[in-house]
């Protein structure tokens, strides 16, 4: 089936070459980082994780969100999602690929990555995160590829793949839960030390992931003969709506607990994010942007008139997506390190090479996504053509 990715329009190839170009730049920046060390990033002794780990965290959520299609379709027999389940699974594959690359580029000694396998350490959450992420990648690869292969032959998916599909549901929840546990189990990092972390992660994932998926589906509809159908899009949009409301609600719970209890350690990071701490305000404009976008997105999505209007819907989805990205991809990780264990503030902002590497990893993800979607849509177009002729 892969051959379908080797033929395409001029626009397809321009896009692929552009991605390859960005990957090239990112790769050069990464070579520079390998040579000079992580000192070329904005990271420090105090803020020891930054942009890379934040993108990793965010993308685990995007990967997990495939389950929002799998559950309705396979567990509740919601047929409308039948056509796009594969797009969710392929998005998950691309997201997990990026997650792994972000972990790799964040490592000080990436050549030693196999140490995690050579010295398996069950008391380390990172060990489990590696296990569940790799497992999730394989499950989605096998399920995605097999179901698509069957679809090409106009056959139902083979029976042996069914258990894997069901397994993918708790597994998706596990990848984001374990990722939340990376943070939530650490003593002395007050922003992260919260029982609701995993729940918050899932809520924001089920908003941002399907939001991205709808945007992709709308793009595919414009550029190919494959149409997922309005009802599927609207159902997904409702999922985005309620997940985002839950996400904001969970966040407000955090704010209440920290602020009303008036415990300084719990208030400090939240103050840092929204009003600044000791005159340090790097993230304040971003966090308020995220806040405004969250409410704007929810407003447009809750109102059926604007949600059903397909020229407004994309803006609502973009607002939700960016809001969730700022919250997780910037605020959460950096905010956890501020103030530092001595209650001093060291701020963080990514450097140009760091951004180049980040973009490079995203470009790899989009390339994987492009190839997989090209194959999937090729198969679907062929089938539509065949059925049209018989």
């Amino acid at each position, binding site marked *: 089936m892969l051959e379908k990715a080797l033929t395409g329009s001029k626009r397809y190839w321009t896009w692929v070459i552009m991605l390859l170009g960005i990957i090239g730049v990112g790769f050069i920046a990464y070579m520079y980082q390998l040579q000079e060390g992580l000192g070329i990033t904005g990271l420090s*002794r*105090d803020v*020891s994780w930054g942009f890379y780990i934040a993108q990793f965290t965010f993308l685990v959520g995007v990967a997990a969100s495939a389950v929002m299609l799998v559950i309705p379709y396979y567990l509740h027999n919601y047929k409308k999602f039948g056509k796009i389940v594969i797009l969710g699974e392929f998005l998950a594959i691309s997201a997990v690929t990026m997650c792994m690359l972000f972990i790799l580029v964040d*490592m000080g*000694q990436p050549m030693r990555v196999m140490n995690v396998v*050579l010295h398996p350490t069950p008391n380390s959450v990172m*060990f489990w995160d590696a296990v569940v992420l790799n497992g999730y990648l394989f499950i989605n690869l096998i399920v995605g590829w097999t179901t698509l292969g069957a679809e090409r032959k106009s056959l139902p998916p083979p029976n042996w793949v069914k258990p894997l599909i069901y397994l993918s549901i708790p597994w998706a929840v596990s990848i984001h839960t374990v990722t939340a546990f990376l943070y939530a*189990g650490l003593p002395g990092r007050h922003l992260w030390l919260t029982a609701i972390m995993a729940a918050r992660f899932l809520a924001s994932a089920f908003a941002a992931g399907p939001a991205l998926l709808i945007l992709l589906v709308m793009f595919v509809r414009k550029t190919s003969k494959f149409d997922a159908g309005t009802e599927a899009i609207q159902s997904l949009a409702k999922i985005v709506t309620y997940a985002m409301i839950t996400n904001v609600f969970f966040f407000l719970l955090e704010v209440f607990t920290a602020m009303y209890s008036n415990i300084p350690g719990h208030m400090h990071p939240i103050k840092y994010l929204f009003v600044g701490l000791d005159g340090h305000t790097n993230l304040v404009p971003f966090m308020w942007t995220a806040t405004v976008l969250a409410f704007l997105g929810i407003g447009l999505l809750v109102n059926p008139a604007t949600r059903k209007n397909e020229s407004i819907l994309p803006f609502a989805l973009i607002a939700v997506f960016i809001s969730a990205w700022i919250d997780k991809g910037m605020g959460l990780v950096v905010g956890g390190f501020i103030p530092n264990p001595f209650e001093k503030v060291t701020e963080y902002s990514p450097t140009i090479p760091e951004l180049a590497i980040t973009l490079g990893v995203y470009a790899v993800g989009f390339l994987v996504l492009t190839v997989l979607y090209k194959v999937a849509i090729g198969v679907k177009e062929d089938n539509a053509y065949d059925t049209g002729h018989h």
Partner: protein
Amino acid sequence: MSMDRRRFLKIAGVSTVLGLGGASVMNGLSRRGLEASQATVTPDPKGLTAKRWGFAIDVNKLGSPADYQKCIDACHNIHNVPSIENPKHEVKWIWNETYEHSFPGTEHEYMNHEFKEKNFLLLCNHCAQPACVRVCPTQATFKRKDGVVMQDMHRCIGCRFCMAACPFGARSFNYRDPRGKDANGKPFIKVENKTFPTRMIGVVEKCTMCYERLAIGQQPACAEASNGAIVFGDLEDPNSEVRKIINSKYTIRRKPELGTQPSIYYVIGGSEHA
């Protein structure tokens, strides 16, 4: 979570065979003998042993800033700790910090200025329940049976999970090549101690309680340089000097509420003799 060095050596050998970065392990072994000294099958009879090593630190006995600096230099010089100016990339095993930042949350608005600003010597607490050891995915940081929290710079993958987990800021990451030079061409390690390994870029390091000195019967370097301000000994031995100090004086530990159980006790007040 203690770990048998011989097992480590075996695994290091395997990883060399597999070509998985084990080469640096072997370099480390032959070059400086760090791991070899830990794996000694028959320990030096003069070596110091304990059930749980710990410190009692009485900063009142450190008069001038020079007294603090003597302890810091003693450690940093023998352990080839690079002096990197940029605070973001700084590497430190033992350092000065004022009371209010050493024990955040315990200062208050009526506290005497002098006490608030009083310097304390901070280093890894060699916690009995170390968060860093719990999170490390490779056991590069591990706890020995005698309480020393070790750091194996040859196994560390530089994920920095331990830095996020340590609530005491005790860990430093080599953002720059510690064997390299600063912008003016001056080496980060002024005078290299050839008997102790230097580190490579991209790994985490911290105080390892002078395990290499304990093994040959010497006190930790900071204690030796402190004129009696830093007392080192076995916390489990009621007759040790460190326990006598803890018995007779009022001591505090950093962030005890987090449950890591630091093994460093700071003397605040109390009589001189028990």
